[in-house]
């Protein structure tokens, strides 16, 4: 038994079906066989046994389902039957000290202490501080096999993470990605909220996805408080979300060009990304959209002059992005490096549960805006952009398709902004309630799940950044590639470290 729900629907926590572990496993396995993906799987660490919840998302039928169980200390791992939960099971083991028996690579995910006193999946004592990056990495042995370790401090201006390559000559046999360096305790700090810091945590889960995560959070709060944001606010949120996508996709195209040494597009897109960010700053004063999305609506309204400026800048910037992007597709040396590099099959992608651009680049039509629309996307459809080759080229090209569609959406919305207020009043949150919200951020599916306690405070607030699903995709994309293609493959995914580490 599962509980069907909508994106952003208020639920009574007591109605979430609680099943024994065997039934729970069967439900998850059956739904995934039917074509659902696991949008979230998480535990509620406390003193007793651990309640575990799964959010199952079937994009074809457009159904979301919740199912729960309780685990005392161990349970048979689901990873062998449902590979896409492997990362989630490691997270539950680390946070709640329960052991998924038979997990093929049960290693710490973020190298943090268990949040359940007296229970640790690796038998460490409460005083023992886990040492980041110290784990039993895979090793390939044999003549001429060598290991390359990179990070946490990288050569570029990017976030910290550790990468271990097992190589034979230039060829990568296996890449293992070990994260946790950006862990700053956000999920723990969210417990007992919301409070005056909560929205700021949401805006900085992944700073380049401020609008995406803040929207998912605000939709959760609005469901829990029974508040309906005004239409004008919904449209402005949509415009901001697509501007965020436009900025980041444009930046990524430039960075991809840079990674193959094609400087014109790199240098053009570096500037153009900023032009999109400056459009967001025009609305709310912050290039990253800080202060824009607020529970009940948006923190800033736009006047005629501002809308006029946005429209004008959109056309100018889009024209220049078009020129810069088309140079990529028309330059044989670029295509030569993009095509057939870091390819994933649709089958692998489905199996390991990738989302966002990486999934769509393999032909999977995974897009929350289409599958589980909320806000303005319930009324305005943006076609899903896909490509079929699953390689760096596909990931780049899907970004370009999405740039065009996002720009068309922004243009259309700016031409028909509904009148009225931009913020509604938000009351107290419902007690013992639950809500799941999903937003298609520029990297892919953002999923937030909030559970309140008897006083309307957060008993658990789970954040799943799209990067959480996708890091393993990067590892697999590197198999049998040249190690020198790592920067290019990495950029084609462009995943978030902080969104993963939380």
């Amino acid at each position, binding site marked *: 038994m599962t509980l069907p729900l909508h994106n952003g629907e208020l639920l009574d926590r007591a109605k979430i079906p609680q099943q024994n572990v065997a039934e729970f496993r069967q439900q998850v396995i059956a739904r995934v066989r039917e074509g659902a993906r696991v949008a979230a799987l998480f535990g509620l660490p406390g003193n007793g046994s651990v309640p575990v919840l799964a959010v199952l998302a079937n994009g074809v039928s457009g159904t979301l389902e919740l199912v729960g169980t309780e685990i005392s200390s161990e349970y048979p791992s689901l990873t062998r039957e449902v590979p896409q939960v492997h990362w989630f099971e490691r997270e539950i083991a680390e946070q709640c000290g329960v052991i998924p028996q038979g997990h093929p690579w049960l290693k710490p995910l*973020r*190298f*943090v202490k268990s949040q359940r006193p007296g229970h640790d999946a690796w038998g460490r004592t409460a005083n023992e*501080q886990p040492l*980041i990056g110290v784990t039993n990495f895979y090793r390939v042995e044999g003549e001429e096999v060598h290991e390359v370790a990179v990070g*946490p*401090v990288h*050569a*570029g*201006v*990017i*976030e*910290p993470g550790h990468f271990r390559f097992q190589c034979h000559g230039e060829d990568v046999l296996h890449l293992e990605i070990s994260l*946790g*360096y*950006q*862990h*700053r*305790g*956000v999920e723990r*700090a969210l417990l007992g909220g919301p409070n*005056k*810091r909560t929205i*700021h*945590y949401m*805006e*900085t889960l*992944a*700073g*380049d996805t*401020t609008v995406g995560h803040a929207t998912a959070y605000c939709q959760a709060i609005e469901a829990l408080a029974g508040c309906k944001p005004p239409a004008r606010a919904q449209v402005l949120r949509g415009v901001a979300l697509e501007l965020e996508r436009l900025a980041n996709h444009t930046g990524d195209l430039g960075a991809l060009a840079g990674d193959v040494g094609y400087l*014109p597009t790199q*240098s*053009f897109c*570096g*500037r153009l*990304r*900023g032009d999109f960010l*400056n459009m967001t*700053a*025009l*609305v*709310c*004063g*912050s*290039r*990253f959209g*800080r*202060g824009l999305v607020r529970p009940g609506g948006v*923190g*800033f309204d736009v006047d005629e002059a501002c809308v006029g400026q946005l429209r004008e800048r959109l056309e100018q910037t889009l*024209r*220049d992005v078009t*020129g*810069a992007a*088309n*140079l990529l597709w*028309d330059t044989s040396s670029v295509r030569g490096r993009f095509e057939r590099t870091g390819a994933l099959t649709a089958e692998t992608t489905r199996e390991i549960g990738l989302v966002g651009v990486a999934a769509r680049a393999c032909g999977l039509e995974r897009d929350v805006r289409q599958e589980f629309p909320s806000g303005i996307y319930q009324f305005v459809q943006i076609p899903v952009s896909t490509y079929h080759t699953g390689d760096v080229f596909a990931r780049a090209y899907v970004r370009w398709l999405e740039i065009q569609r996002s720009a068309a959406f922004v243009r259309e919305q700016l031409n028909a902004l509904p009148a009225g207020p931009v913020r509604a009043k938000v009351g107290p949150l419902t007690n013992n309630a639950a809500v799941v919200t999903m937003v298609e951020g520029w990297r892919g599916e953002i999923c937030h799940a909030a559970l309140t306690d008897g006083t309307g405070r957060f008993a658990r607030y789970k954040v799943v950044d799209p990067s959480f699903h996708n890091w393993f995709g990067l590892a697999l994309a590197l198999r049998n590639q040249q190690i020198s293609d790592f920067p290019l493959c990495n950029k084609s995914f462009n995943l978030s*470290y*902080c969104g993963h580490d939380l």
Partner: protein
Amino acid sequence: MFRNVVIRLQQGHRTIGFPKTEPTMPDRFRGRPVMDQSKCPVGCRDCAEACPTDAIMIDGKGLRLDLGRCLFCTDCVEACPEQAIRYTQDFRLAARQRDDLILSGESLKLAEALDKKTRRLFGRSLKLRQVSAGGCNGCEGDVNVLSTVVFDLGRFGIQVVASPRHADGLLITGPVTGNMRLAVKKAYEAVPAPKIVIAVGACAIAGGPYINHPEQHNGADSVVPVDLYIPGCPPHPLTILDGLLRLLGRLEDGRPRS
């Protein structure tokens, strides 16, 4: 090839005139805040209580705001019944001392240049290694942007390099998480002396939104000595650039040194 040239011409010249000409900031840009204590009702603490990072202090010394902790959000402005706090468009915020970031009233002691000897070494060529140590990748985004054609950091002789061994100093972002502490220390030790450290953003100055979380260390100066603090969440690229140029003694009263 012909197309390349056409597109190149279409893109135009995009490098901004700063510091020779004053940049235009967006109308709603939140730069240096100013406070007018004379407007404060007696005993009112609304702004201090609304501040997510407790950056606002109201005590015997009056109303003060710690720019190092400030997220430049609108919570205090919205909470104030008398509009006693407002943001200006002044993007110049960098300071040499942590205490200089504590603002009372309007004035802010902006960063002074390095001493003559260090300036002779770094003034015309400064290589920095960036270390991201927690945070949200927002500061990294706006540091990265300095290398684009818009800001063209290279024209000032400043460059971000790939290894601390090639660097004259570190540019640190993030609150220094427990999991990055050792890496920050090692990166600092790997930079040859004399070296400088620049803390960019609210996280690297004081922990940002994560201030006092046990998982982090409330900023870079808990681990290494800091020579320049650049506030913001994240700081505008111009705030960072202005700070760097001040440190190198390349600006006088906001204008390039002749």
